């Protein structure tokens, strides 16, 4: 579904006299439909940079990212027009980082409901579905009408994952979604990701711990050697 070929990213830092910093170099892999591909390698090797290049938060310097869309069209995400990327982000591509970014002063339940509404779910149904989700991930009912900025780290991240999954993207990019979480929150999030995968979502993920990789991934790409390797 997604084929990355010869992808490289370098940053030219004008504020340091045009210093070139290499993000990563010559990455090639294929992500298969309904599977989770884990990206591994030491800190600073460019794992997050790679995910951001696929999502086009970063502009790739070289190479291609061929994506097969739900309607059968093929796009090179590395060079596609901004309008195309915006449309794909809205309809089929998601990205989750370890930080929750939401509009200030909107309650958790409203944020989640609005996300569902943008997916053409009926208003009455959306609220019920949102409540179901929040209950499922064990967020205390007393918090549903609070702003997420008042949540604990674990609660914020559970909401973050819910928001990404609620819009049911075909391709989801996960950038350390379980970093710095307690084991209980982590377990809940890993289960959610596994459920989504069972429903056919394609995922590419960066995880800092080996357990998560073993539990979730179908294949592993090692950025030290730029090759697919065995999962464990």
């Amino acid at each position, binding site marked *: 579904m997604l084929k990355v070929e010869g992808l490289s990213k370098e940053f030219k830092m*004008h*504020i340091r006299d045009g210093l070139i910093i290499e993000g990563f170099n010559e990455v090639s892999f294929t992500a298969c439909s309904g599977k989770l591909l884990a990206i591994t390698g030491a800190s600073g090797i460019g794992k997050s940079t790679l995910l951001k290049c696929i999502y086009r*938060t*970063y*502009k790739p310097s070289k190479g291609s990212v061929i994506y097969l869309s739900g309607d059968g069209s093929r796009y090179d995400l590395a060079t596609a027009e*901004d309008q*195309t990327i*915006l449309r794909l982000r809205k309809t089929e591509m998601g990205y989750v980082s370890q930080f929750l970014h939401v509009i200030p002063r909107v309650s958790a339940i409203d944020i989640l409901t609005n996300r569902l509404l943008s997916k053409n779910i009926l208003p009455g149904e959306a609220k019920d579905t949102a409540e179901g989700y929040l209950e499922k991930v064990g967020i205390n009912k007393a918090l549903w009408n609070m702003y997420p900025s008042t949540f604990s780290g674990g609660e914020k991240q559970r909401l973050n994952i819910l928001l990404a999954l609620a819009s049911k993207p075909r391709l989801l990019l996960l950038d350390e979604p379980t970093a710095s979480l307690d084991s209980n929150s982590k377990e809940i999030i890993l289960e959610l990701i596994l459920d989504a995968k069972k429903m056919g979502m394609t995922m590419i993920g960066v995880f800092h711990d080996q357990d998560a990789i073993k539990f979730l991934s179908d294949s592993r790409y090692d950025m030290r050697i730029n090759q697919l390797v065995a999962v464990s």
Partner: protein
Amino acid sequence: MNTANPVLRVRDLIVRFGEGCNYCLQGAALEKGRCPYCHSVWALNKVSLDLYKGEILGIVGESGSGKSTLLRALYFDREITGGEAYISEYKDGEKNIFEISNQQKRYIRNQKMGMVYQNPIMGLRMNFSSGGNVAEKLIAAGIRNAGSMTERAKYLLNHVEVPINRIKEEPKNFSGGMQQRVQISKALANNPSILLLDEVTTGLDLSVQARVLDLIKRIQQELGISMIVVSHDLSVIRMMADRTVVMLEGRIIEEGLTDQILEDPIHEYTQILVHSLL
């Protein structure tokens, strides 16, 4: 979003103060947007952009970069020196809106566009009632029925959270945030397809700023209006805009997805701008 057919296309727009000379008219290098020989100032120097249906396009840049001049040129507040612009809802986007009669320009301004200025004094009549302000725009758009005008004014002012019982009051009695909300409702009165917003939250305190932005975002989602949001505040741009263009010395120097502009700026000036963010 329709890639093939933007609601607004701007091509090579120029606003120049001064006659220009053989040097700068050839497109030679300027000093901070000013010709070193004839001292003409190029406030807009061949600006081109597309605005797509239902999107919010952000414009950032330092003061004097031409952001406001661009909006005012598009709203016919300011004479242009050269260039073209096309609106898909006017003559199927085939007629350059700078080459039409003043009457036709007024028609576009009254029927197709809305403008919200940084300073409410620019957009409101401070000694008319709030309802009267909204009605003024409705009358300009050709509506003559007093009953339906009152209804529309009530609906709009309610939408921007101005209490109905203050509809007869003059904006000069209102706080800055409330004046700004009256101005937004006035700009929306004619159901414009394009809304231009010039630093609308600059100078408002933080909580009011958030409410005005919430409101604009909600209106955009409900009504699907295409907007150009000018701001020097990058957090406003991050919250509002899908795409962003960066202006410097009358030119667009970089454009892209808002998150890309903020996280992976390519142009030297954009890098300085983004890294200046506290």
